[in-house]
C-alpha cells in the first residue's frame, strides 16, 4: 500500500515537472526542440528556422539561429552543420542577415568546418544556390536556379562607400527617375552609416574581432514590388548613437517621441532619426538616417523597416511604429518595400 502511494506521489511530481516545463516553453513561445542542437560525436547540427523573416512572428527564430551558429563556430571544437531541411520560405531582410553573417564568419574563420544539409523546399534550394550560400558552405548542389522570383535577387557588398556598386544595380532595375533617385539616396546613406558609424567598437558577439568595415546589400524585384535591404554587422544604431550625441541630447529627442524615458533599442533608433532631422544645421551634419525615409514619402505604399540590435522602427504612410524583440540581431538591417506600379509623387 505504502509502495503504491509512493509510486503515485512520484508520478504526480513527475507530471508537475512536465507541466511546468511545458508552460515555460509556452511562455517563451519558441518550442525548445526547434533549436535543438542535434549533436553527434563530431558535429553540431543546427536546424534552420522554418521561415527566414524578420517580422515579429519570425524575428526570434532567426536571431536565435544566428546566435547558435556564432556560438557553434566560435567554439571551434566540432563541425558545424546548418540543416536547411525545415526552411520553407526566405524573405529578403533575414536572408541578407544570413548571407552577411556567413560571409563574415568565413572571413573570420577561413578554416572553420561548416557544412549544410540542403533545403527540401525547391524555391529555398534555388535561393541558397543563386546566392552562393551553398558554395560558401561547401555544398555542391546540382541546381540551376530558373525561377523568376529567385534569379531576380541581386547582391552588392563592399568595404567602403561604393556608389558605383549600388548605382549600377539601380540603373539596371526598371525604375522611373523618382524611384531610382530616392532609392539611390536611401541605399547610399545606409551604406555611409554602416561604414562611418557601425564599426566604432567591438560587436561583442563572442567571435574574434572583425576589423573590416563591411556592408551587404540585396535587391529583389518580384511582380509589382521591389525589396531592397542593406545590412551591416556592427554595433547597431542604439549603441552608436551615444557615441555621437551627449546623453541629455538623446533623452530630449526620445522625450519628443512619446511619454516614458526608457532607452529601448527601438526608441533609440527613432531618436537617431529625429536628431538628424532637427540638427542638420550643425557643422558637418547631413540628414543621414532621414534620407532612408524619403523614398517612402515619395512613393505611395512604400514601407521602410529599420531593424537594429533588438529594435525595429517601421515607417509607412508618414507614421512610425516601434517594436522591441528579445534577442539582438547584432547589427542593422534596413529594408525598403517599394511598389513598382503607380505614380511617384
Amino acid at each position: 500500500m505504502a509502495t503504491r502511494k509512493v509510486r503515485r506521489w512520484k508520478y504526480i511530481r513527475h507530471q508537475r515537472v512536465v507541466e511546468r516545463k511545458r508552460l515555460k516553453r509556452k511562455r517563451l513561445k519558441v518550442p525548445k526542440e526547434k533549436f535543438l542542437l542535434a549533436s553527434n560525436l563530431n558535429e553540431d547540427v543546427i536546424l534552420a528556422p522554418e521561415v527566414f523573416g524578420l517580422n515579429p512572428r519570425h524575428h526570434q527564430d532567426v536571431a536565435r539561429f544566428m546566435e547558435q551558429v556564432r556560438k557553434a563556430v566560435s567554439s571551434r571544437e566540432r563541425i558545424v552543420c546548418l540543416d536547411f531541411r525545415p526552411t520553407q520560405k526566405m524573405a529578403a531582410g533575414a536572408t541578407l542577415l544570413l548571407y552577411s553573417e556567413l560571409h563574415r564568419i568565413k572571413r573570420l574563420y577561413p578554416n572553420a568546418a561548416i557544412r549544410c544539409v540542403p533545403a527540401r523546399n525547391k524555391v529555398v534550394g534555388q535561393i541558397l544556390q543563386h546566392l552562393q550560400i551553398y558554395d560558401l558552405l561547401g555544398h555542391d548542389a546540382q541546381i540551376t536556379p530558373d525561377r523568376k522570383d529567385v534569379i531576380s535577387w541581386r547582391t552588392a557588398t563592399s568595404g567602403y562607400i561604393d556608389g558605383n556598386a549600388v548605382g549600377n544595380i539601380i540603373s539596371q532595375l526598371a525604375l522611373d527617375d523618382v524611384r531610382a533617385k530616392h532609392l539611390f539616396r536611401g541605399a547610399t546613406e545606409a551604406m555611409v552609416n554602416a561604414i562611418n558609424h557601425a564599426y566604432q567598437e567591438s560587436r561583442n558577439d563572442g567571435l574574434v574581432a572583425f576589423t573590416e568595415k563591411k556592408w551587404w546589400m540585396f535587391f529583389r524585384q518580384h511582380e509589382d514590388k521591389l525589396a531592397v535591404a542593406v545590412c551591416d554587422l556592427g554595433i547597431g544604431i542604439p549603441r552608436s548613437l551615444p557615441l555621437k550625441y551627449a546623453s541629455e541630447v538623446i533623452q530630449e529627442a526620445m522625450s519628443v517621441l512619446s511619454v516614458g524615458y526608457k532607452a529601448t533599442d527601438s526608441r533609440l533608433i527613432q531618436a537617431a532619426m529625429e536628431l538628424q532631422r532637427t540638427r542638420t544645421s550643425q557643422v558637418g551634419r547631413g540628414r543621414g538616417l532621414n534620407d532612408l525615409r524619403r523614398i517612402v514619402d515619395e512613393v505611395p505604399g512604400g514601407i521602410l523597416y529599420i531593424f537594429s540590435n533588438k529594435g525595429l522602427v517601421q515607417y509607412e504612410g508618414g507614421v512610425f511604429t516601434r517594436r522591441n524583440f528579445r534577442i539582438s540581431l547584432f547589427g542593422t538591417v534596413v529594408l525598403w518595400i517599394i511598389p513598382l506600379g503607380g505614380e511617384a509623387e
Partner: protein
Amino acid sequence: MTTLKVINIGKQFSRYPVGRYRADGDSNGEKFREDVLRPLLVMRDDVVIEFDDALGYGSSFLEEAFGGLVRSGFKADDLLKRLTLNTADDSLKKEIISYIKEAKQ
C-alpha cells in the same frame, strides 16, 4: 576673372556621387568641392551646376560639397549669387540652398 562656367556633375564628375570625405570612396563631396567647385569659383564669376545627369545625391555629399564651401571661407550670400543650380527637382535645389545658408563659417 572670366565670366561663366557650366559643370555637369553626372557627366564630368560622377554619375553616382556619394559620401562626405575623401576616405568615403571616389566620388565624395569633399573631392567635388576641393577639386572641382573651389577652383571654378576662384577663377570664374559665376558657375552653373547641372545636377540631373547623376542618379541621385545623398545628403552627406551635398552638405559637404556646398555647406563645406561656407565653412572653408566663402560667404553664403556671395555663393547664392554666383551659383546657378540647374535641376528639375525643386526639393534638391532647396536642400542645397539650405546647406549653404545654414552652414557656419
